[in-house]
């Protein structure tokens, strides 16, 4: 195992976060805080309690998940696409590094960045709404697993993208709608029966509800179904990235 290479890629990517602090950390924290203010404090005051918690508190796990998903995908897709775009990917490809080491370096850095943003958002949420976490270890486990899974997914997008448009298409056209329609801001029961059935096909629903269960011990979906869904998606991403990088898709001819 080339540990020095993993370390080099990891800190090189973390250094990019330091150089772009506003975009990487402040921007997602600010936009999520706006959700807390508008939906939590202002509109939330007019909505009765859901599953025994105030609406403001109810939406925290969903908004946290929304930010983690989008940040993880954006961090890692950009992390691998940018060297492809500038051409500096040559030195990663020419170095004595295995595919696994490349993935650990890039995805590890991306997941760390998302985790940092997630923790800051959690702290920020306490300024606007009442927050309790019934199962903190489970929450931490889901937080890490989500960051890793979607960083891998983003890495795959960055690997296969040939231009900036392709880089943006999947996050904007697919991920954002899935996240908004995945029960971040409402419970499934609030929907008409037909849309309830449709929502059960949305994988994000299981993630959001898993996170909500770790906070309040109640959700639309059984916690084990949520965890199994997340692990299954992680496995799909691992397989996808492994195939793409071994075959050299997007990097090697």
């Amino acid at each position, binding site marked *: 195992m080339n540990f020095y*290479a993993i370390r080099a890629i990891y800190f*090189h990517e973390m250094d990019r976060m330091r150089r772009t602090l506003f975009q990487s950390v402040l921007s997602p924290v600010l936009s999520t805080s706006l959700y807390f203010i508008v939906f939590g404090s202002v509109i939330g005051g007019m909505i009765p309690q859901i599953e025994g918690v105030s609406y403001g508190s109810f939406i925290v796990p969903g908004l946290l998940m929304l930010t983690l998903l989008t940040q993880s995908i954006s961090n890692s897709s950009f992390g691998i696409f940018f060297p492809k775009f500038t051409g500096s990917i040559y*030195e990663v490809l020419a*170095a004595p590094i295995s595919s696994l080491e490349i993935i650990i370096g890039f995805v590890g850095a991306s997941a760390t960045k998302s985790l940092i943003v997630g923790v800051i958002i959690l702290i920020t949420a306490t300024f606007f709404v009442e927050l309790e976490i019934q199962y903190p270890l489970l929450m931490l486990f889901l937080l890490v697993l989500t960051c890793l899974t979607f960083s891998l997914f983003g890495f795959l997008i960055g690997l296969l993208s040939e231009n900036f448009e392709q880089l943006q298409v999947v996050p904007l056209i697919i991920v954002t709608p899935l996240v908004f329609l995945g029960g971040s801001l409402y419970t499934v029961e609030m929907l008409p029966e037909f849309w309830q059935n449709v929502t059960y096909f949305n994988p994000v629903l299981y993630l959001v509800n898993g996170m909500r269960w770790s906070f309040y011990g109640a959700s639309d979906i059984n916690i084990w179904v949520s965890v199994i869904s997340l692990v299954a998606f992680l496995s799909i991403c691992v397989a996808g990235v492994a195939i793409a990088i071994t075959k050299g898709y997007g990097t*090697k*001819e």
Partner: protein
Amino acid sequence: MQNVVSVKNLSKTYSNQFQALNNINLDIKQNEIFALLGPNGAGKTTLISIICGIVTPSIGTVEVGNYDIIKDYRKTRSQIGLVPQELTLEQFEIVYNNVSYTRGLYGKPPNPQHIEKILKDLSLWDKKDSKINELSGGMKRRVLIAKALSHEPSVLFLDEPTAGVDVELRKDMWEVIKNLRNKGVTIILTTHYIEEAEAIADRVAVINKGEMIVVDETSNLIKSLGQKTLTIDLHETITTLPESLNNYKLTIVNDGLSIDYQYDTQSKQTGITSLLQDMKEAGLKLKDLNTEQSSLEKIFVELVKEK
């Protein structure tokens, strides 16, 4: 001398069916400066990209230091440093971090003394804290060389190292390359500047349309394939050549004050004696004689044209 790089029956066809290399065989000796010459699109970059692990070969094998580049990729790649053709650098990163990053990628522990030495050798030490986008083109190229040397490689590939570089900087770069060779590094460079190969390379390979046309020592190539030009200065200007000289390959130059005669150094009879005799009989008065060896450029053009 021991071979450092050994290429056997190497071919490469890209996914768009373009055949970039066709059955290349090549051995590069330890501690030599080897130049790969060829026009644009000849296959030079594909060849070094395969050796460095960036492009996958279609057929054939490549060994670096007796290790296979695919089976033992960690061993081969750790011996190699690569300076790419394009200035592919992260523009917002500082020089020192960028060079140190490459050392890490190659699995070497941090060594600030080594990085400092390289940056000083390449006159980059005073720019170590500058962002890449604040550097001139020549400095960026030197940063690429510093990165390639950061992990102390024994084989250095330079892909068009002086492309777009002014004459003065080009000569500085040649000095850098010669100094590296003196320190024991084997240098393989691609270029389409013939004078570059002529000035610094021990051996030259000419590649065209994916095929190796010739591999030889630079001096041998010039000697064996070279034509010589005999320039004969005259006392009086002429406008046309006497009919008796029509059998010779002559050109009137210098506004009629000189005649150039092309001859092959390898042929049994160069024709010089009979030419001078015939010129005397035609009444031409000779002032001076001068011979010049054909440059590698002329040889290269001839070789590529023949193919």
